[in-house]
């Protein structure tokens, strides 16, 4: 199971990763980070295939993927 680390305070909630994830496995959190943005969360870690597409499109390098 890949591990996705989200830097919550870097995320700006732009949704680029959400629009990109082939597994539709990312959503915005209800919570705000210290910059005032709703950051993302992985819906189901098990569903992630570590394709890295979310990483590719993230302008804020808020996503790190391990496997």
């Amino acid at each position, binding site marked *: 199971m890949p591990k996705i680390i989200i830097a919550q305070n870097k995320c700006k909630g732009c*949704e680029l990763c959400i629009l990109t994830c082939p597994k539709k496995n990312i959503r915005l959190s209800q919570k705000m980070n210290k910059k005032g943005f709703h950051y993302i969360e992985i819906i189901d870690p098990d569903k992630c295939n570590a394709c890295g597409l979310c990483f590719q499109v993230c302008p804020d390098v808020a996503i790190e993927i*391990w496997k």
Partner: protein
Amino acid sequence: MKKLFSKPESLTDTDHKYCPGCGHGIVHRLVAEVIDELGIREKTIGIAPVGCAVFAYDYWNFDVTEASHGRPPAVATGIKRFLPDRVVFTYQGDGDLAAIGMAETIHAANRGENITVIFINNAIYGMTTGQMAPTSLLGMKTTTSPFGRDPKLAGYPIRVGELLSTLEGTTFLARCAVDSAKHVLDAKKAIKKAFEVQLAGKGYSMVEILSQCPPNWKKSVPESLEYVRKEMMSYFPLGVIKDKTKA
């Protein structure tokens, strides 16, 4: 466990000041990845523009200098001629590169300066909050074309790659986008090629990247991506515009 995808070494950990969804951040990372992959971080000198990317020196983990608005090609020329074995690139917006800096752009290209130009075409002046750029599409409403860009008053969006392709001095010219993961990966390839051209001493390379600017386009992020795909790409076709290394 192994890190599959993570911040390249050539990026610092500093948070970007860009708006949510802005393409600048993506391209910053691509440039950093390419520099890492080519192993040239310690001999690279970047030139940040005046534009939203003005703080690029805070984000890149190698030597970076400021340049006055529009003059990165001249600054790059000064650096590269004095230190020909370093890798020198400029990072410029459409206002910087194609409006105020047009003469410097054309002449650095024409001299075939052995530098790489990363050109962020977001069809708008981002930093100054939304004025018309030389690349703004016809009909586009901006804060200085409130009735939409009218070619009779404001001329036509300039296709920079095509313009430069007529110059003997240019070696590699390509146009990419960062609206989707696929295009991001294509863009990275083009950027890598551009730096390789420089490393091989083959002369001037430029990669133009269509980039979204949601707030100044007055669009949501998804709408912005649509705009890049539907409107921008049909006027600014993606692909390699010129590749003299193939001749």
